[in-house]
């Protein structure tokens, strides 16, 4: 906990300098919120940190960055607080601490995910289903994935309740949620206020690359998720079990989503590798890359499964894909994936101002 209070103290020091300057007011949602305060509680700083999208506009515009003795680096100061808040608010907390800054641990869980699926497929085998269900029965899939899906939801719900308490939020209203969803839908906070984008891969040059890549991942993921949801409804409500044809809704959604997801993840990793690491959270770079890699791999293995579904490689690919999905779901509350939930909540809280 000592480390956290140091990170908060550093963020507080920097926020006080920003509050005496205010030149960055138009860049994003952080500054109007910051300038509304006179003193910064731990909760205020946690909220500001989760509002910050790390667009870095303020860093490159700042006249007080090192070598200036004020040594401002607000993107990193807030990233550190944000990272700590995700570890701290995670349920169970020990899992947050284990994975948020540990790319190796993420990879290990992914491998365990593969292994579990191999083992299950091998030992349970099929109960005579068609297609993928010939490898692993529908019931076995549900038995594995229903808890693996529900657990992260419960965990994140608990974390967000903790977050709202920490930042001293008012009761939520639908209007606030609508406003927050609008901002997230356009990623307004990566537009840079002037609409030229953010500073990420080439110092102070503004580009939309990161915003575009992020939206490709976000919408790609949502399309994939919708695909699965639609398929679930078709299976249970309409009594239309898989496999589905190319022009079926699940396939169209899944294919377009998978492509967006893979391309977005590749671009995000490329941008991340070009970015200045000193402007992101300390020690989190490897875990962020590992997470984006896992997410991209979920998409890629899904696409491969579709492409090679009729070949002998299918059972292997199915286990790899489902293993990746399993690892991804289970890790959602404890990796960078959690940021989406916190970010949206922070935007809701900001809309209350």
């Amino acid at each position, binding site marked *: 906990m000592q480390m956290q209070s140091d990170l908060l103290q550093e963020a507080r020091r920097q926020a*006080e*300098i920003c*509050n*005496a*300057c*205010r*030149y*960055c*007011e*138009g*860049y994003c949602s952080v500054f*109007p919120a910051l*300038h509304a305060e*006179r003193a910064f509680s731990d909760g205020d700083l946690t909220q500001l940190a989760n509002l910050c999208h790390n667009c870095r*506009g*303020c860093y*490159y*515009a*700042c*006249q*007080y*960055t*090192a*070598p*200036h*003795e*004020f040594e401002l680096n607000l993107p990193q100061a807030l990233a550190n607080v944000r990272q700590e808040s995700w570890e701290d608010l995670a349920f169970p907390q020990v899992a947050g601490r284990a994975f948020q800054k540990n790319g190796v641990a993420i990879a290990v869980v992914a491998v365990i995910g593969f292994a579990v699926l191999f083992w299950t497929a091998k030992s349970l085998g099929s109960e005579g289903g068609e297609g993928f269900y010939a490898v692993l029965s529908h019931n076995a899939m549900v038995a594995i994935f229903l808890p693996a899906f529900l657990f992260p939801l419960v965990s994140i719900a608990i974390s967000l309740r903790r977050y709202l308490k920490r930042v001293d939020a008012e009761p939520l209203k639908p209007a606030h949620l609508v406003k927050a969803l609008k901002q997230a839908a356009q990623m307004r906070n990566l537009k840079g*206020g*002037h609409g*030229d984008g953010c500073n990420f891969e080439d110092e*102070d*040059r503004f580009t939309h690359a990161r915003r575009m890549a992020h939206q490709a991942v976000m919408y790609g993921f949502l399309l994939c998720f919708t695909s699965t949801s639609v398929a679930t409804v078709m299976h249970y409500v309409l009594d239309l079990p898989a496999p589905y044809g190319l022009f079926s809704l699940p396939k169209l959604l899944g294919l377009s989503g998978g492509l967006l997801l893979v391309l977005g993840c590749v671009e995000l990793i490329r941008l991340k590798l070009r970015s200045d690491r000193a402007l992101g959270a300390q020690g989190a770079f490897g875990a962020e890359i590992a997470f984006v890699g896992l997410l991209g791999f979920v998409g890629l293995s899904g696409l491969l499964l579709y492409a090679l579904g009729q070949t002998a490689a299918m059972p292997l690919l199915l286990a790899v894909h489902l293993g990746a999905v399993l690892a991804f779901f289970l890790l959602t509350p404890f990796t960078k994936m959690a940021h989406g939930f916190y970010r949206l909540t922070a935007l809701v809280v900001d809309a209350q101002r």
Partner: protein
Amino acid sequence: MSSIETPDIVVIGGGNAALCAAITAAEAGARVLILEAAPKPYRGGNSRHTRNFRCMHHGPLGPLVDSYTEDEYLADLLKVTGGKTHEGLARLAIRTSEDCLPWMEAHGVRFQPSLSGTLSLARTNAFFLGGGKGLVNAYYRTAEKLGVQVAYEAAVTHLELTDDRIDFIDYTQDGQTHRVAPKSVVVASGGFQADTDWLARAWGPAAKNFLIRGTPYNRGVVLADLLDQGVEQVGDPTQCHAVAIDGRAPKFDGGIVTRLDCVPFSIVVNKDAQRFYDEGEDVWPKRYAIWGRLVAAQPDQVGYVIIDAKSLNLFMPSVFPPIKADTLEELARKMDLPAEALVQTVAEFNAACGDTSTFHPTELDGVATTGLTPPKTNWARPITEPPFYGYSLRTGVTFTYLGLKVDERAQCAIGNRPVSNLWAAGETMAGSILGQGYLAGFGMTIGTVFGRIAGKEAAAHANAI
């Protein structure tokens, strides 16, 4: 450096005026080399610390609301300069400012609505998104795209003037001496305020205790070199624009955040704990420049602001937290003031305060002391409510007035004739327009207008050869 062997134009300096000149000249087809004395992180001179640009406009323009006419603009300028203004050049700057805003946007500058706490400027001043460094970054990007070469840590040591022409420029970079002989030269390297020895020679030894609000690289080397060779000068060589800032600010480069807005709600004492001026004479934006001089005239060039708990939230937060104490004696100890004298000064002040029921923090409220010398004529509320807070005040120098005299083509002169290939823009020639005082955002107007003129003229000269 893969240098241009013989640039057409050398621009000395790397701030707003220099960049406007370089971009304009490059767009006219000239090969331009910028010699910036600062390393890259500190490029941009005092422009790094600016935040807006004062702009004439007929009807809403960019972030600006309503309109702001030439005559109103000029009247505002004459008010702050007490008439010490070159009206022809001032009108040129004002009139051209309206064209500048779209030009700035077209060259990468982005604006934002007036900042919180600065609503009074929403009609007259266009704020740069991210402040002056954001503007400088955008201009460097634009300049580099146009093929302008930039040499950082390139300190010009000498311009060789023969008759009415600059023959060559000497500069050092990475310990090497270089000589370059361009067709045209634009000087945009600011004033001399960062050379505290020069400041002390001009102002007196007290200047050694002044803080410099902006860049440490404006040392006036080029200015001195040209004046020594007889290039025409303008502006009072002994004067600088100075304001009262937080005494704990760094010696250089503290910028905007060292501003302290609490004087109207305080009493200000010197190191003997004696008051010396009416703290409530007028609203702070109209008085902060006066306080730079008032503090400069006190022993050790330092003042101490004393407020109590009820005034703490009436002004913009500053970068350093105030010194805080439960009693005045303790506050005096913490601030190194004579405790008994401070207690007595506060007691006399408190006794002179009257009815405070009409106190209004943002208007001249007439809540004044009676029978006190010096009086406090507004916002005079007794200092009684602990905890008590204190700030130290020092003189912070913004810029110097001495500069190169230019004509409406931004050209420098020697004797009664122009220097055929020398132009100047920005702070280094602002004395040609501003004789004293300062109008918020006018420095960037001068830099942009005369930077563009200098770039155009320098390119026309170079292209004609």
